[in-house]
């Protein structure tokens, strides 16, 4: 089931992100997804060597999920593959019946665990979306015809609504829409006012936007994100809230409460929700319940 069809029906789509392990055994991951996510989210979004750290492939993991009856979203970044490999992997996904994509530029290789590697970036997120659109029209990026029926995808993209230069991000969003993006998921939001303001401006593009949330796990984590992660700003009052009750914060209760509150404040302004639990998948059901979803 393509996410686009759900958006068209007016459904509030909920997805969660998971990262494949650094190894070949995914039993644990499948257990977690079955236990905490399967019946609560529409689809599970599988990262592609997230933060440039080498892991099991997103496509193989997506296939394993699909076999378990868990609808997957295949994340594809431009960092590690040239346009031939990218198109080939995307066709492979279609052949396996995986028709939800999230198309990204990707973090630079220097930020990951193989800083010596050659960053590819043959395409960027915009030209990758364009390439997938070409495939859907029955030709590849070079204009050669595909044999048989062309694939059809829900083509997702990302945007940072709380970026310190949101105008630059909106310009990029527009370029992605022009290239053929069908839906967006956002970088983590901690400032609902900023998100709502952003949605006012993003409305003009007429594509569904899913609110992105990252569960704040600890004071250390949010301080790290504030210093290092682009497009994320955790305001002081939330840091105070995390500091206040150490036990509650340690148990994840404060993080769950904050996340649910943000979702509640934003959900009327967007079309779906994307939860990045970063290992705290077990908290996802509580968050959804508390947010009334």
């Amino acid at each position: 089931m393509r996410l686009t069809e759900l958006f068209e029906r007016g459904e509030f789509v909920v997805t969660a992100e998971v990262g494949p392990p650094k190894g070949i055994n995914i039993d644990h991951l499948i257990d977690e997804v079955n236990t905490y996510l399967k019946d609560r989210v529409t689809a599970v979004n599988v990262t592609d060597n997230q933060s440039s750290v080498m892991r099991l492939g997103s496509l193989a993991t997506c296939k394993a999920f699909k076999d378990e009856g868990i609808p997957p979203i295949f994340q594809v970044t431009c960092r590690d593959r040239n346009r031939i490999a990218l198109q080939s992997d995307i066709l492979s996904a279609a052949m396996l019946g995986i028709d939800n994509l999230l198309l990204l530029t990707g973090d630079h290789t220097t930020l990951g665990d193989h800083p010596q590697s050659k960053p590819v970036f043959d395409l960027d997120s915009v030209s990758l979306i364009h390439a997938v659109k070409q495939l859907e029209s029955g030709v590849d990026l070079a204009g050669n015809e595909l044999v048989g029926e062309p694939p059809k995808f829900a083509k997702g993209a990302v945007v940072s609504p709380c970026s310190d230069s949101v105008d630059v991000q909106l310009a990029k969003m527009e370029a992605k829409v022009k290239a053929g993006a069908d839906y967006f998921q956002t970088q983590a939001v901690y400032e609902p006012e900023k998100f709502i303001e952003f949605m006012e401006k993003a409305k003009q593009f007429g594509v569904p936007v899913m609110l992105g949330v990252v569960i704040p796990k600890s004071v250390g984590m949010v301080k790290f994100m504030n210093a290092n992660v682009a497009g994320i700003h955790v305001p002081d009052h939330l840091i105070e809230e995390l500091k206040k009750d150490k036990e509650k914060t340690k148990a994840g209760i404060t993080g769950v409460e904050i996340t649910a509150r943000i979702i509640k404040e934003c959900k009327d302004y967007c079309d779906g929700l994307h939860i990045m639990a970063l290992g705290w998948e077990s908290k996802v059901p509580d968050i959804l319940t508390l947010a009334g979803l």
Partner: protein
Amino acid sequence: MLITQLKSKDAIASLAQGKTFVINCHGCKEVYFPEYQADELQKELAAEKDITEIMTRDYICNPDHLQLQLEKYMDKVKDADTVLVCSCGVGVQTVAKYLEEKRVFSGCDTYPLPGFQGVTPQELDCAQCGECYLNYTGGVCPITACSKSLVNGQCGGSKNGKCEVDKDMECGWERIYRKLEKLNKLDTLKHPTKVRDYKKPFDFSTKDGE
């Protein structure tokens, strides 16, 4: 426009095995070559290793010129086990091609020397990418000013206007956007999707004697 830099003494010593013939190219005007350091290092090496001859010439990347220069040394070259070339990568390849049977090693690393055009150092970079995008970007080069050489806009990694790869570097796309904004040309960003073309417009391969 490039720069040649000597490899470390240890690295070079490990290359100079057996009788070694050294060729230095003191370069062409587009190249920086560390002549004095090479001189010093080779003197040191000669004290420890069997360096049969050190030849210093220019333009060894020109095959005919190289042949002419090497002519009177050919006995010594033939006698050597190893030929160590201190020059840019093109020079080393030219020597290796000419001395087909020899173990030819490079004593240097070659880096592009950005910002040089003609003989005047400039503060700006051109990666000679083949399809100039400056007309879309307010004259700020997206290939060299952006760490990922993106041509369709900013990635999600910029923070406080700085690049995700290097916090001391301004995000190139932030610069491009601000420049276009200042020029009142933000409309330029609404051009159709650009896909980079890496196909070489010219055939640079040498056709000598083939």
